[in-house]
């Protein structure tokens, strides 16, 4: 008997459609069209589409979703896949990297990192750090810091001595000439983040865990 190419399984969150990942794509499309047209579904159901180890182009993925959603009974709420391309993987890894720069970032110098960066040294005025993720300066931050440069509004800029001239997080810019009282009074151990109103705020490093719980990747009691 021919193997079933489309498995349907009901769960309390809706249907899971598991697609065979070994057969030809065209066969899969035909089988899926047949299964979907059989009907037998009342109302609208949420569907999770599980692609297994098959790699699909974006337009193929869309084609399958269209087939499933066409009769108007099912809505694909999630697409699961066990595979990503090398490029996607590299991009992900880079974003998760934490670079370390040891030295002084001097006037006119720009240090860039795809993910987080730790600077062991000072960032002098007119020196600049640009990171896709967070920026942590172990010395004095007296220059310019741009965290979340690709648009990550969760990113923070933290420094042992927080005295930057400019702080950027994602697309939000803060010029420090109109110094905030908290920065003026305690330049030590501060960090900058985008608050709920969408503006850059500052707080003590101790508050980082509360304000950005996801920063923490280590347990501990």
């Amino acid at each position, binding site marked *: 008997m021919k193997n079933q190419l489309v498995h349907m399984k009901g769960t309390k969150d809706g249907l899971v459609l598991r697609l065979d990942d070994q057969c030809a794509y065209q066969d899969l499309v035909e089988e899926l069209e047949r299964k979907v047209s059989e009907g037998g579904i009342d109302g609208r159901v949420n569907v999770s589409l599980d692609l297994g180890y098959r790699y699909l182009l974006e337009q193929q993925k869309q084609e399958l979703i269209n087939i499933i959603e066409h009769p108007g009974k099912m809505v694909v709420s999630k697409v699961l896949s066990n595979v990503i391309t090398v490029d996607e993987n590299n991009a992900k890894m880079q974003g998760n990297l934490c670079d370390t720069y040891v*030295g*002084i970032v001097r006037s*006119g110098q720009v240090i860039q990192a795809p993910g987080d960066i730790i600077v062991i040294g000072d960032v*002098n005025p*007119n*020196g600049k750090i640009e990171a896709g993720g967070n920026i942590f300066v172990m010395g004095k931050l007296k220059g310019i810091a741009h965290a979340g440069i690709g648009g990550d509004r969760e990113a923070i800029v933290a420094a042992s001595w927080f005295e930057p001239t400019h702080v950027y997080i994602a697309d939000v810019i803060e010029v420090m000439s109109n110094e905030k009282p908290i920065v003026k009074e305690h330049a030590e151990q501060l960090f900058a983040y985008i608050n709920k109103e969408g503006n850059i705020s500052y707080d003590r490093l101790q508050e980082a865990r509360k304000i950005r719980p996801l920063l923490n990747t280590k347990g501990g009691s």
Partner: protein
Amino acid sequence: MTGCRKPEKYGHYSTLKEVANVGEAIVITSGKGGVGKTTTAANLGTALALQGKKVCLVDTDIGLRNLDLVLGLDNRIIYDLVDVVEGRCKIHQALVKDKRVDDKLYLLPAAQTTDKNAVTPEQMKELINELKREFEYVLIDCPAGIEQGYRNAIAGADSAIVVTTPEISAVRDADRVIGLLEKEEINPPKLIINRVRKDLINQGDAMNINEITTHLSIDLLGIIVDNEDVIASSNKGEPIVMDPNNKASLGYRNIARRILGESVPLMTLEEEHKGVFKKLMSIFSR
């Protein structure tokens, strides 16, 4: 990166020097103009010559030469650096001897009229290497800025001295230049803080020595007080370092000794105000 905790010596090049039996070329630079590069070159050159070293000063400020004036050698110039590079004369014909320090101090003057792009970094390197064969120290006076003139000046250098004054703008430019120098294959740059005025520092109107050195975090080679006799002596064409009793002169002499590898404590300001400025003292006795 350069730390601050190395011994107060400049002679880390000496091993190489002994092996190859050539001199050391030191470029004197700053980024900002008017902070005292030319004054420093003239005085350190003279001080090293007074210590018995054979020294050649090279003025690379093409189009704006004035090292010859500060040394009082301007009316003896026949050929200049560009003449040498372009083969119109031999190096020896262009060198001007300073008769005050018997046979020890020479100047290779800059061209006054030529366009400053007349010389390339490769040509400069060749020239400096040739001078290093004959002189123990080749001091290169760098023009202001970080363009072609600067690149020419650093091309042949083994080490660099960065001159700043206690002003924020000068310190900023020094920081920029240090960043550029750290990318070159030369020894970590060392710092001279020029035109230090204790009254301004005490009033908080100028950055203090500690602030400047921690900000720039390179080794401090010495400080030179602000002293009007420096200007007068430059105008006379006689470097202040010839006057053994002047405070700025003492600063230059101490720096020359540090370059020669002696460890001379930094105490120029402290001496003048014993016990009064405890804070300053603690900085200088670090």
